[in-house]
C-alpha cells in the first residue's frame, strides 16, 4: 500500500512550521543547488540536510525507508553512465569489452548521484512531515490557491491507497475468469494494459460519484468559503525560508572558494 501519512514527530520545531513555508524552503534550497554541476556543493548540502533532520523530528532509519526510490535512481545513474558515458577520461579501472570504467566516468556519476540526493531530499523531508489536509489548507489560506484545485486534489489523493487493493481484486477476478498470461511476455503486456484500463474505468466512476457527493454538500457552488482549520504564516515561517536560502548559498560559496564550482550555464 502507498503510504501517505506523515512519519515525523508532529511537535518537532520545524515539522510544525506552516506547510507552504516548508514547501517554499525546500524549493529555494533545491533550486539554488541546481546552479552547479560539481560534486562538492551537493555533498555539503546533503550534510546540511541530514544535520537539520532531527529538527524535523524524523529519525534517520525512517528517512532511509522513505527515500529508497532515490537509491534505486542512483543505481540507475551509475549503470547508465558506466555503459554509455561519452567522456572516458582518467585512469582506466576496468576494461571488459563494451564496459570501460575510468575515474572520469566514476566522478561524473558520483556528481550526478549526489545532485539527485541533494535536490530530492528536501522534498522527501517536507512530505514526510506534512499532513496532506494541512498542506491543502495552507495552500488555500496562505498561498491563495483555488479551493476547487486544492480540496479536489486532496479528495482524489485520499482514494489513491484504494487503487492498490483494486488492482489486486481485478487481477484475481481475471484469473477466476480464465484469463492469465502464462509465460508469454506479449500476453503479459496485454493483460497488464487491460487490467490498467479496468482500474482506470473504476477510478473514473468512483471519482464521478465523489464529485457528485461534494457537489451535494455545496462544494464550489460560488458561495465564499470559510475555513474550519486556521493556518498561520508567522515570522518563524519566514525565517525557515530565509534559513534555507542562506544554507544553500553557503554550500555554493564553499564550492566556489574550493574552486570546484561548475556552473550549469557557462
Amino acid at each position: 500500500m502507498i503510504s501517505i501519512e506523515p512519519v515525523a514527530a508532529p511537535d518537532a520545531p520545524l515539522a510544525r512550521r506552516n506547510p507552504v513555508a516548508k514547501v517554499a524552503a525546500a524549493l529555494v534550497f533545491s533550486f539554488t543547488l541546481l546552479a552547479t554541476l560539481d560534486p562538492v556543493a551537493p555533498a555539503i548540502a546533503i550534510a546540511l540536510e541530514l544535520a537539520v533532520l532531527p529538527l524535523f523530528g524524523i529519525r534517520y532509519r525512517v528517512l532511509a525507508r522513505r527515500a529508497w526510490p532515490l537509491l534505486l535512481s542512483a543505481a540507475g545513474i551509475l549503470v547508465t553512465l558506466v555503459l554509455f558515458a561519452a567522456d572516458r577520461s582518467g585512469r582506466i579501472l576496468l576494461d571488459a569489452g563494451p564496459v570501460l570504467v575510468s575515474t572520469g566516468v566514476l566522478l561524473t556519476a558520483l556528481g550526478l548521484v549526489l545532485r539527485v540526493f541533494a535536490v530530492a531530499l528536501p522534498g522527501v523531508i517536507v512530505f514526510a512531515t506534512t499532513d496532506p489536509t494541512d498542506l491543502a489548507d495552507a495552500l488555500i489560506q496562505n498561498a491563495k490557491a483555488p479551493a476547487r484545485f486544492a480540496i479536489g486534489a486532496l479528495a482524489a489523493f485520499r482514494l489513491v491507497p484504494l487503487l492498490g487493493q483494486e488492482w489486486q481484486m481485478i487481477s484475481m477476478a481475471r484469473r477466476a475468469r480464465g484469463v492469465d498470461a502464462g509465460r508469454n511476455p506479449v500476453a503479459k503486456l496485454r493483460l497488464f494494459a487491460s487490467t490498467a484500463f479496468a482500474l482506470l474505468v473504476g477510478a473514473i466512476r468512483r471519482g464521478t460519484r465523489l464529485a457528485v457527493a461534494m457537489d451535494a454538500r455545496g462544494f464550489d457552488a460560488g458561495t465564499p468559503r470559510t475555513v474550519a482549520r486556521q493556518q498561520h504564516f508567522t515570522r518563524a515561517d519566514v525565517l525557515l525560508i530565509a534559513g534555507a536560502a542562506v544554507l544553500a548559498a553557503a554550500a555554493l560559496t564553499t564550492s566556489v572558494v574550493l574552486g570546484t564550482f561548475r556552473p550549469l550555464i557557462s
Partner: protein
Amino acid sequence: MGGVLLRGFGWRHAGRRAWAVRGVDLRVEAGERVLLLGPSGAGKSTLLSALAGLLPEDSGEQEGTVEIDGLDPRKGRERVGIVFQDPETQLVMARCGDDVAFGLENRGVPSDEIWPRVDEALHRVGFPYSRDRHTAALSGGEQQRLALAGALALRPALLLLDEPTANLDPAGADLVRRAVAGALDADTTLILVEHRVAEALPLVDRVVVLEPGGGVRADGTPEAVFAAHGAALAAEGVWVPGHPIAPRPATAGPGEVLLTADRLGLPPRLGSTDLAVRAGEALAVRGPNGAGKSTLALLLGGLLRPGNGRVTASAELAGADHRTPPHRWRAPALARRIGSVFQDPEHQFVTSTVFDELALGPRRTGQPEAAVKETVAGLLDRLRLARLAAANPYTLSGGEARRLSVATALATAPRLLICDEPTFGQDRRTWRELVDLFADLRDAGHGVVTVTHDADFVAALADRTVTLHRAPDEHR
C-alpha cells in the same frame, strides 16, 4: 419548510432514448416521512437527484416542474441534504471532524460556529469516536453515520436518503437506521429510497410507489398501499413484508468431498480454518466483518496463495492437476473447475458486451465456437439477459450486473461455485432467482459455497453453515 411539489415531472438523461422518470405528480408536506418505492428502473434515484438539485440543466431534458418550498432545487441547494449508497465515495476528508466541517465551510458558515455544529451533528448520529479519528479506520456503517452527520450539520429542511444501507452488513445497516431515527427533527422532511421495506417502515409514515412506465402507481399509508399493491410489488422485486420466499432444501444428501481446507490461514486476514466442501451441497460461510470470510472465498477459489496450511482439491475436481494446489493451476484450468463470483460484479467484467462476457470463459477453455454460442444462448435465456446481449456490462443495473457475473462463472460449467455476498443490495426478484439457480446447481451435483451476511438467504438455501470468528488478537 422542506415541502416538495412535483408537477408532471420527467427527466431524460442526455443521449438516452428512454425517460428515466416521467409524469410524476407529487406533493410532500414539510415534516412528512416518505418511503419511495418502485421496481428496478422506475427512476427513484433520478428523482432524488432532481430533488437534490444534482441534475444540471445541460445534462438532460426536463418535463414539468420540481419545486422545494417554491424554489428550483438547483437554486435552493442549501435546503436539501442527501446521503448516497456508497460510503467510500462520499467522504471527502481524511479526519472525521474535518469531513463534517467540509459542507459547513462550503456554505460559508462563520469559522467560530463550525466546530460546535460539527460536534452537535456527530452527537446526533451517535458517532462514538473523536473528531480526529481517520475516516479510513471506520466500518461501512460508521462511515454512513458520518456521511449522515455531514448532511445534518447543514440543517437541511429536506433529507434525501438513497439506499444508504444497501452496501452494509446487517449490523452496519441497523447502526445507520437507528442514527436516522434518532437524528431527525420533527419538522425535517424525509424521502427515503430503500429495497428492504420491513426495516425502513419504522422510519416512515407514507409510501409512494413509482410506476416504471411513468407516473405514480400508489400513494398512502404503508398499510393501505401494501394491502392493495403488496403482491404485485413483491412479484416485481420489492421486499414487501409478509411475502416470504419458499426455501429450497436439498433433494438428496451431499456427495463426495471436492475441496479440503487444512489449517488454512492468511495472517492477519484469516486465522486457521478447517473445512470440507462437498458436491451436491450448499455451504454457507458466515461471521462478523473482519473475520476473513472474503479471504477464505479467495483462498478456496485458488486466487490467493495460502499463508498457512493448504487447500487440496480431490482427484475428481482437479483432474490432471490433482498433485498441485488450486492457486497454482493455470487460469483456464481453474475456471473450468472452480467458479468464483466476486462481491463487486464490475471487478469481473473484461469485455465490452454482455455476449462476449459470457463467451470469454468457454473460448478461453478451448470450446468450439458452435458450443460457445449454444452455452451463451442458454445462459442469456436462463438469467433474463437475452435483450441485453449487445449492451456494455458497465451500463447494467445492479441486479443485471449480478446476474451476469454469476452467469460468467457458470459459463465454463465448473463443478464448484464460490460466491462472495451474491445477494448484497439485490431486489427480491433477483434474490429469488439466485436461490433457485444455486439450488438447481446443487441438486445437479455441483458444490456451492456462499460467503454471506444474509440470514434469509442462508435459511432458504444452505444445507450446512460454517461460522468464522474474528481472531482474538486482531483489532481492525
